[in-house]
């Protein structure tokens, strides 16, 4: 393992890491609000909405993420008649798969967070004259996020690692570059470099969520 070689491959590998980071940011930014929306739907008094939310969660959690990615990238275009309109850029298709999968997990995390909130909170808010919507916004959501934070941190770190599944749908990202370099140069070094880059990314996330947890300690 020499330094010169590492510097030489660092450029393309960081290029790959950029795709990884971009996918991560897109998925987090969309799947967290999606998950919250699905939680609200699952708790809705309107039965069909709740049913749709529960079915969605069941399907996305009950099937492999890899299958879902393959389905969005290669399956959709094969659907008769409408398939030709469903051909997407593979990065976009994969993002969609990740978003829908992680949205379901976040929905369950938030639902758990909501269940942990004492019903006295709803009662106090009601007696103080807050509407259901005001109660949700000002009393429930803040507490729910606090409870859900450790689980959200956990999921986020999983997501960093799951981005490596892009390899299977041939979107060039960090692992892809590493594998190419290993095959080309007959050395294990690129894998180690990739590992270090993943560790750096998860380290940043870990520190970020630690800070958030400290900030929302309510003490």
């Amino acid at each position, binding site marked *: 393992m020499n330094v010169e070689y590492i510097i030489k491959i660092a450029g393309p590998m960081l290029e790959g890491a950029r795709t990884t980071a971009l996918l991560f940011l897109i998925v987090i930014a969309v799947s967290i609000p999606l998950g919250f929306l699905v939680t609200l739907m699952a708790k809705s008094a309107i039965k069909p909405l709740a049913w749709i939310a529960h079915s969605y969660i069941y399907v996305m959690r009950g099937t492999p993420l890899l299958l879902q990615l393959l389905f969005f990238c290669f399956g959709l275009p094969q659907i008769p008649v409408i398939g030709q309109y469903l051909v997407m850029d593979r990065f976009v298709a994969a993002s969609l798969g990740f978003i829908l999968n992680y949205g379901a997990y976040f929905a369950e995390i938030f639902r758990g967070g909501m269940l942990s909130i*004492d019903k*006295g*909170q709803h*009662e*106090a*808010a*009601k*007696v*103080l*004259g*807050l*509407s259901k919507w*005001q109660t949700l916004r*000002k*009393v429930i959501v*803040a*507490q729910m996020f*606090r409870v859900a934070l450790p689980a959200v941190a956990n999921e986020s770190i999983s997501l960093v690692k799951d981005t490596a599944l892009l390899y299977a749908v041939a979107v060039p990202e960090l692992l892809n570059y590493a594998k190419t370099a290993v095959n080309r140069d007959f050395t294990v070094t690129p894998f180690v470099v990739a590992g270090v880059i993943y560790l750096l990314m998860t380290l940043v996330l870990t520190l970020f969520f630690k800070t958030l947890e400290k900030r*929302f300690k*309510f*003490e």
Partner: protein
Amino acid sequence: MSSMIEVKELQKSFGSLEVLKKVTFAVNPGEAVAVIGPSGSGKSTMLRSLVHLEEATGGSIIIHGKPLVKDGKYASAAEIREITSPMGMVFQHFNLFPHLTVRGNLELAPRTLKRESIKDITAKSKDLLSKVGLTDKGDVYPSMLSGGQKQRVAIARALMLNPDILLFDEPTSALDPELTGEVLRVIRQLAEEHMTMIIVTHEMNFARDVADRVIFMDNGEIAESGTPEQIFGSPQLERTRMFLSRE
């Protein structure tokens, strides 16, 4: 003098279990009413029905002349909100908002409902914190307070909306005995200011001292009611005597 709260033949059942059996009483302006009775007698359910935390299955509740429920039929959701708005409530377990500071707890509802200017709201929260003796705790989160302090914050929070009627649901039952005094002192002060109050309590000495009237509930009905002298001095019913001798 017209009543502030009129409850007529209030009924509530969970399945076949009758929790309230035709409860009838009225509360006049400025009156402090203590409700006593054994656990499971329906005291809390009765109190919670007044602010629509429980739904009655029959009877009427009339607040300021407006029916919250009449012969078992409830007003519309908007009317319910309007009719229950003059009432504040203090809970056994405080139910403070843990994610807000003490001041945040006091100001959340008025700031959200926007009936007053921010300036008035902050001035009032400052006043009320000093009234309950917690001037220096405004920026502290509830988790850092003792039970007695939490309950005093809860009382101040209820007072922020200028209620005409305050309901207390066993306000000292979750407190260590040495902390009940500070909470009872605040309630006593409110009674001296002629705040209309209904207090469900197990503190017999407090009920005797502070209440203008005492209602003894047993088995889902009002067994006996009268002045503290009547109830504690010469109870008419055997079951009232039994209950008081146990407490």
